[in-house]
């Protein structure tokens, strides 16, 4: 009590202690999450290896798949993985629980917030570690390009980026459309299963499919625009102008999905009174 200490000195000391404690806590948490991170990384690597082996199996019996060579299809596979990374990281966590929320009535809580419901439901949860899938996918595409011996021009690269962004929007629009279904068919528990089942078709170039399926995947469930188009832009299979078309498709898809969502929401809030 008789000691006189400079107050600032004391504050500095405790500040260091606090910071150190925070860092230690952070690192301990990091370690815990790192185990999950390694697990998901290993998991994704495993499934990519499986996909590559499947491709190799197909190409054991043919030189071209829908006119695409092996490494071209691998570029497409990389794009597919990058997009699924976005889906797993951003969309699935938030949207995945929508169906149960509709059933239990908890959605009313969500709707009462002063933010756009669609945006909130879509982006509310982020599974950060899954973004590594995006990196893996793009890395794979890059590697495949190298094996093709092709270096994309700046214009092609730009077209690719635009097409990829548009692809992400189209995927998002498809998810929003599915979300809207949750309002009509309240018993639909596993919306994501519906998406996954159909999206498997995006693993391969759309030209590999027979006519009827091709029509389906280009005009009705436009998953062709999500992988085939960006990959084509990158490998130069399609002219860079395709990027503009991709943007147009994305805009249309988003608009349609938004309309569907608004209708569904209107009906839902009307019914629940």
């Amino acid at each position: 009590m008789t000691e006189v200490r400079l107050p600032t000195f004391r504050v500095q000391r405790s500040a260091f202690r606090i910071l150190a404690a925070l860092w230690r806590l952070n690192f301990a948490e990091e370690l815990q999450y790192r185990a999950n991170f390694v697990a998901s990384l290993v998991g994704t690597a495993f499934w990519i290896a499986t996909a590559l082996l499947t491709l190799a199996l197909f190409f054991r019996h043919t030189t071209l798949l829908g006119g695409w060579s092996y490494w071209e299809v691998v570029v497409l596979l990389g794009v597919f993985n990058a997009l699924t990374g976005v889906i797993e990281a951003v969309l699935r966590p938030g949207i995945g629980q929508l169906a149960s929320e509709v059933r239990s009535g908890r959605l009313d809580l969500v709707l009462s917030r002063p933010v756009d419901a669609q945006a909130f439901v879509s982006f509310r949860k982020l599974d950060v570690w899954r973004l590594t899938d995006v990196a893996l996918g793009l890395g794979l595409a890059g590697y495949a390009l190298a094996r093709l011996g092709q270096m994309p021009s700046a214009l092609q690269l730009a077209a690719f980026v635009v097409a990829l962004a548009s692809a992400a929007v189209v995927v998002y629009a498809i998810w929003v459309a599915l979300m809207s279904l949750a309002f009509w068919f309240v018993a639909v528990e596993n919306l994501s299963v519906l998406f996954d089942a159909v999206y498997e078709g995006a693993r391969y170039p759309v030209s590999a499919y027979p006519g009827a399926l091709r029509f389906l995947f280009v005009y009705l469930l436009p998953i062709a625009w999500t992988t085939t188009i960006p990959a084509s832009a990158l490998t130069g299979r399609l002219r860079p102008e395709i990027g503009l078309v991709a943007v147009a498709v994305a805009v249309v898809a988003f608009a349609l999905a938004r309309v569907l969502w608004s209708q569904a929401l209107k009906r839902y809030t009307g019914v629940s009174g």
Partner: protein
Amino acid sequence: MRCVDAIDSPLVAPVILAEKLSKTFRVKVREPGLAGAVSALVRPRYRDVHAVRDVSFAIAPGEIVAFLGPNGAGKTTTLKMLTGLLYPSGGRVEVTGFTPWTGGSPFKRRIALVLGNRQQLAWDLPAEETFQLNRAIYDIPDAAYRERLAELVALLGLAEVLDKPVRQLSLGERMKCELAAALLHRPAILFLDEPTLGLDVTAQDAIRRFLAEYRDRHGATILLTSHYMQDVTALALRVLIINRGRLLYDGLLGALVARIARVKRIELVLGVGVTAEALGRFGTVRSFRSPNAVLEVPREEAAATSARVLAALPVADLSIQDPPIEEVIRQAFAEGSEAET
């Protein structure tokens, strides 16, 4: 402090017998911080958690007994050892003549287990479907099934809810259906883990009355764990108090109160002009909200002090009470812990 107020006659063989029952878990030790996380991976170290220590008791057929204790005291662990879900680390246990852990089907047909937080009813189907399933599993003859179902439905008031999917029922209705499902095969012993957890007062009351009635009719032995005092006061004459794995008390609730509660409470309705200080001369003033007051005095002096208060102060009403049960129990825990250290 460990005491037994024996109430069972030595002539009746116990239906549940536990002798120095112990259960120790080996838990991985994880030091906080980064270095600790790494060492936990590389060189794991363990520490022993003594969940149950040297617990001994005997329960006669037809008794209703409550295991009382705070969370983590070892009640559920003991219950799991009695039902064969866990095997003891030490001591022995015998239930209806079986060692629960090795009892197999014959043992399981004689008991029923109802867990408060996990249900066995099929969630999406009416409770009746689960009843039918249990009928098949326990090989209940048709006539017996119909008769028992009718009785349980009547006692529990389930006529309206039998054909509604379980997920549409209230918590109380669900618990009643759980009980019905558990009793269709007329088990000799019913084990209940926190049966009134989360229920509203009416439902709790209904279930307690049902259990008492059922025991009276069929002589089933009922063993429940709880941290609700009302479960005990309404149902069980006999309590086993467990804390930190040790059995602190085994006997009648009334005797426990008498033994532990060293004080009595004098509840007063006072006349005008009495201050807390004035009252404080006679004992500890527990609460003073004019005109009501509660005075706490040592048990032996309760009568004498009451007389003095009546003589000295204007009193409209006076009554002598035991302290609330919760406090008695809390004191038992505290003394038990003290005895350990």
